């Protein structure tokens, strides 16, 4: 169950091998979390993430293997995660995503479809199933990792950005539909995060590392913030950027 500070005891992380997820899981374990279910594609990564969570002090760590290209298996994957938790699930983190390379991918129809599936379709299908499970449970929290890349789309990563835009909108809509159900949904919008996914790219202004994202998400959870921007200043920056004329936006660094 969640405690008075909104700290969860049982957590499911979809995309549990990502660096942001790892940093967040560390924080959650330091604040009471005892059971962690990690779902991911990369089995080596899952083994590594499991060891890490155990070393940080989680009592029960289980893993579920899935592929975010298989929409028709999302239902099964989520059910397996809830079974593995073997207790009411207090928090589900959706951290599935894949940046790709917009320029190179554009010529390859399959790559476009894959990016949209991994970043939007699968997470959306999964969110629907998670919401159903949590509604039945009568309590719980969902944290969805979106990105500022979906708030104002740029040429450098527009396939990823447009998929995140879809996911962000889907998540906000789902949050509304969950009002009054005892289930809460929060959206996280990080700026440029320095991870292996962004290695080699030139960091955009306001770049952060996975640890800062985890810290901000933890605070956002404690405070029930519907939308968590990281860094928080981006909320105001994007208020302006959203309305910049395209000619100016195009020339901005990052």
């Amino acid at each position, binding site marked *: *169950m*969640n405690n*008075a*500070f909104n*700290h969860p*005891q049982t957590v499911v992380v979809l995309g549990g091998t990502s660096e942001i997820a790892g940093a967040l899981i560390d924080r959650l374990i330091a*604040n009471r979390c005892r059971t962690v279910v990690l779902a991911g594609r990369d089995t080596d990564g899952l083994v590594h993430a499991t060891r890490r969570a155990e070393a940080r002090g989680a009592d029960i760590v289980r893993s579920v293997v899935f592929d975010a290209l298989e929409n028709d298996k999302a239902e099964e994957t989520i059910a397996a995660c809830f079974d593995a938790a073997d207790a009411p699930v207090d928090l589900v983190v959706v951290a599935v995503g894949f940046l790709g390379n917009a320029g190179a991918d554009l010529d390859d129809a399959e790559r476009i479809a894959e990016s949209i599936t991994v970043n939007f379709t699968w997470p959306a299908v999964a969110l629907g199933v998670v919401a159903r499970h949590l509604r039945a*449970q009568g309590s719980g929290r969902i944290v969805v990792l979106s990105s500022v890349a979906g708030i104002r789309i740029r040429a450098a990563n527009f396939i990823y950005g447009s998929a995140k835009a879809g996911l962000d909108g889907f998540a906000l809509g789902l949050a509304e539909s969950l009002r009054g159900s005892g289930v809460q949904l929060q959206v996280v919008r990080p700026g440029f995060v320095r991870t292996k996914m962004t290695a080699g790219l030139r960091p955009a202004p306001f770049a952060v590392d996975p640890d800062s994202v985890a810290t901000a998400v933890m605070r956002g959870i404690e405070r029930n913030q519907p939308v968590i921007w990281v860094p928080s200043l981006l909320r105001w920056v994007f208020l302006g950027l959203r309305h910049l004329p395209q000619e100016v936006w195009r020339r901005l660094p990052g």
Partner: protein
Amino acid sequence: MGVTHTPLTSQSSEPHRWVIARGLGRSYGDAAQCSGGVVVDTSAYSSIGLIDPVTGLVEVGGGTSLAAIMRVSLASGWFIPVSPGTRHVTVGGAIAADVHGKNHHRDGSFCSFVASLTLVTPAGIFTISPDEDAELFWATAGGMGLTGVVVKATLRLIRVETSWMETDTERCDDLDAVMSAMEEADHNYRYSVAWVDCSSRGKHLGRSVLTRGDHAPIGALGLANATSFIDIPAESRVRVPFTLPLSAVGPHTVQAFNALWFRKSPKRKCGAIVPLTSFFYPLDGINEWNLLYGRRGFVQYQFVVGPQHADVVRAAVGMMGPAGIPSSLAVLKRFGPGDPGPLSFPIEGWTLALDFPAGLPGLPPLLDRLDELVVGVGGRIYLAKDARLRPELLRAMYPRIGELEAVRDRVDPDHVLQSDLSRRLGIGQKVPS
């Protein structure tokens, strides 16, 4: 009472249908919540029987509030034997938390005054008392609703001559002074409680106001009150109009408030006559006082440690100031010996109740440190006020919890009775080693 009881059974074939009783919801945490399950509204069980004029025994419904009982009982000179800090709690809630009052050092807790009760459980309906199925009776006393729903109870009321209190108040300059004053003379009073200022530092650390007293006999009332020996308490009209966006209770407001309140109290004042309601239920004077804490609400923390561990109380009070954490209401009391309930909170010693605005940074780790101190000396925290204990510590604090779990397996083999609290703390569930 015109209500037929049926045993609690799973309402449907769905796997997760938990049930827990709820009284007036005055427990601070998640004891009376049941996510995804059924919360039993007990307000239908609100009957009050005739008071036996000789013994003071009265049969009441489990959902009857203490306020309702005293409105009736005071008229014939009877009063609630144990009063928590608010009268807006139900008999069922008072039994489930085995509540204590300012007279614990002398009279014990609420369930010591329960002659018998009727409990609806998944396995059937039981009428139990300390002599009849004592195991189930004491597991229910302090059992946080996990043994069933109390629908009826017979209470032993106490005789009073008036609805007034005769009180002595003294101001103590620090924590040691108030603790020794309590050790020396608490036994002379039926009721005793100290209000400790945790926001002061240095030599004023733990300055306190100690209030003690008893029900005033008719002879103690001056002529002015002579026509109203019994004044039936009316409901309060003052209320906090809305939830403040931010907490009105911050380090500075608390410090200022405590300093003001401390200076306003007399150095020593004996024999003051005050109305019973302001003595027992000061917060009931303001409806929805909790809204003062703002949207994020507040967290209560209450622990008890043995009489020889005054140092833990001192350490707890000393931790607040330096951590920048204000606790506006720190209430210190001495408990007498506990009753046989395996999950009943009171044990002999010192108890300190603190409350905090929930959003304070640094509060969760501070409370975790307090837990360690408390459990280190064999103390425990009060579950009716908890919403954040580390589950691992529960069994160290309540080593006899297995007795409650065994009884629960008897009356609720399918574990239908569960609350958010029981699930959060793993009561009745396997504990990971």
